[in-house]
């Protein structure tokens, strides 16, 4: 981002030329990856023209003339926002999400809306009404999800940075699978106004880019209190990059043993532990710690997120917006037909599960218990942070699989989220960065988890590692 900023300010390239270059690349290569649902070429070129005028008149802000992509569950005024769902396939929001608005007010360049799992429910970006997303390293493999399009757009060089969302790993996991860097901030850091809700106590907007430094650069613009989101935090971080070049000496890194169990592939454990050794040689202290309640995390996550999804998605009745069926002889059956036609199978499953765990007979057995697990996980993380500064874990249990080999059993897919969901339950910040490649040359990611509102620290650690780790180029 720094080098783009310099080139633009020195007029080595104009925002218009930069914009055209990105669209040329997208049009040439995205047919194999399908990372975008909507391209905004006309709007982008108009914005680029304005950005160029600003640069000439030296009225420059950090994102002036900088292109970005945005996951299609984040509202963009007058630009289709579909959530990759038939239900919203022609929905045009009348307002911008706060995070998008903050970038657009600086005359940045919105390239397009990226593909994803429908309503952010999924971890493969194959549950999309607009077709699945392929991995730029090898399009036969999945890009991960639900922010697969955002991660793929960055990995393929279609966009220098992408805004995305993470509820149970939807930024970190695709970032890991695509070999780029992704950060989910502390809950409340970035306004959720305009983020189409999946599970409101877990959802966060975050950033995917090619480096931790670029993520910090972006957070400096989009983070902050927003009156329109009552859950956004008052806490101010004046500069997410201020710790970027600090010495690693004395930093205590916790390695929870539960994240290095048999469920995690040997290749992944090896690469993450290799990274841990790098940190140790750089002056960090490695500490073995434990998160005993991790075994309940997936169960708790799917109970809580499905319950919240069932509530949040009840707004999709097809009356005020969304798909409207030609069937339905009365109000009740019209709504049922709209939702039958508009939602994919995964959405229907989650809504049904959510209503099951919230129903009178099962509320205590599932939902109330899941809330207790959530409290316990938070407590265990807090215990770890009494003796450690950050926590290092694998981002995923397995590397990306081939699209044709995707597991058919949804429960088995859910179980793969073991490395990410506990961080969302605890509301903590996490950054995933590439630390190796598997036998198929598919990327492996490691996650650095920090204390609440300590994004600068985890950005610094990821940045330090990235300076010495050579990522494979995508051909």
């Amino acid at each position, binding site marked *: 981002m720094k080098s783009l900023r310099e080139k633009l300010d020195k007029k080595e390239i104009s925002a218009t030329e930069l914009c055209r270059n990105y669209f040329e690349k997208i049009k040439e290569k995205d047919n194999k990856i399908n990372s975008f649902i909507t391209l905004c070429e006309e709007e982008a070129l108009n914005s680029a023209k304005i950005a160029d005028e600003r640069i000439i008149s030296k009225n420059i802000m950090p994102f002036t003339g900088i292109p970005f992509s945005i996951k299609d569950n984040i509202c963009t005024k007058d630009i289709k926002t579909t959530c990759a769902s038939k239900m919203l396939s*022609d*929905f*045009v929001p*009348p*307002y911008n999400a706060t995070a998008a608005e903050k970038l657009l007010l600086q005359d940045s360049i919105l390239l397009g809306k990226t593909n994803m799992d429908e309503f952010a429910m999924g971890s493969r970006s194959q549950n999309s009404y607009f077709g699945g997303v392929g991995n730029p390293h090898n399009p036969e493999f999945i890009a991960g999800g639900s922010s697969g399009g955002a991660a793929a757009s960055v990995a393929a060089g279609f966009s220098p940075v992408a805004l995305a969302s993470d509820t149970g790993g939807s930024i970190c996991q695709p970032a890991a699978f695509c070999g780029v860097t992704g950060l989910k901030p502390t809950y*409340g850091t970035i306004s959720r106004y305009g983020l189409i809700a999946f599970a409101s*106590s877990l959802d966060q907007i975050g950033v995917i880019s090619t480096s931790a430094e670029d993520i910090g650069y972006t957070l400096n613009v989009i983070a902050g209190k927003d009156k329109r989101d*009552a859950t956004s935090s*008052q*806490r101010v971080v004046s500069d997410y990059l201020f710790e970027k070049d600090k010495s690693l000496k004395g930093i205590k890194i916790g390695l929870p043993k539960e994240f290095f169990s048999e469920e995690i592939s040997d290749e992944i454990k090896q690469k993450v532990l290799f990274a841990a050794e790098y940190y140790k040689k750089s002056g960090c202290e490695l500490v073995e710690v434990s998160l005993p*309640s991790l*075994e*309940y995390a*997936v*169960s708790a996550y*799917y109970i809580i997120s499905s319950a919240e999804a069932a509530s949040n998605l009840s707004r999709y*009745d*097809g*009356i*005020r*917006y*969304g798909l*409207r069926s030609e069937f*339905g*002889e*009365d*109000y009740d059956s*019209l*709504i*049922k*037909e709209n*939702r*039958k036609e508009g*939602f994919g199978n995964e959405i*229907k*499953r989650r*809504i*049904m*599960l959510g*209503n*099951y765990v919230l*129903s009178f007979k099962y509320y205590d057995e*599932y939902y109330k*218990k*899941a*809330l*207790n*697990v*959530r*409290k*316990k996980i*938070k*407590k265990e993380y807090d215990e770890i942070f009494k003796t450690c500064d950050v926590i290092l874990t694998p981002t995923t249990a397995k590397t990306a699989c081939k699209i044709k080999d995707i597991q058919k*059993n*949804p*429960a088995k897919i859910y*179980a793969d989220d073991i490395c990410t969901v506990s961080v969302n339950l*605890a*509301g903590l910040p996490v950054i995933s960065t590439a630390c190796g490649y598997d036998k198929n040359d598919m990327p492996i990611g490691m996650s650095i988890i920090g204390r*609440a509102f300590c994004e600068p620290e985890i950005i610094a650690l990821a940045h330090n590692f990235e300076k010495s780790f050579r990522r494979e180029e995508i051909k």
Partner: protein
Amino acid sequence: MFTKEQISQLAELSKIKFTNEELKSMADDMTDIVALMDKIKSFKEENIEEKAFVCEYKFLRKDEVKKSLDKEDVLKNSKNVEKSGFVIPKIV
């Protein structure tokens, strides 16, 4: 294992129409997923001091009427609008 009655009740709560075949397939999927969720039953602890919801949310705005969306913007995404209202099948 979910009974047909249970699944139909959940479909009613969810306000989604299913064919009989779809209900059966949904029952099978949900049985597998609930087996995964059942792990939670072995968690016995209660009265944990932490808050369940991690956010610091404690500020409420004043109860004042403020400008919201223009009516035209509110209506523009609906498929059936008449005289500034959303048209639905007759209820009464």
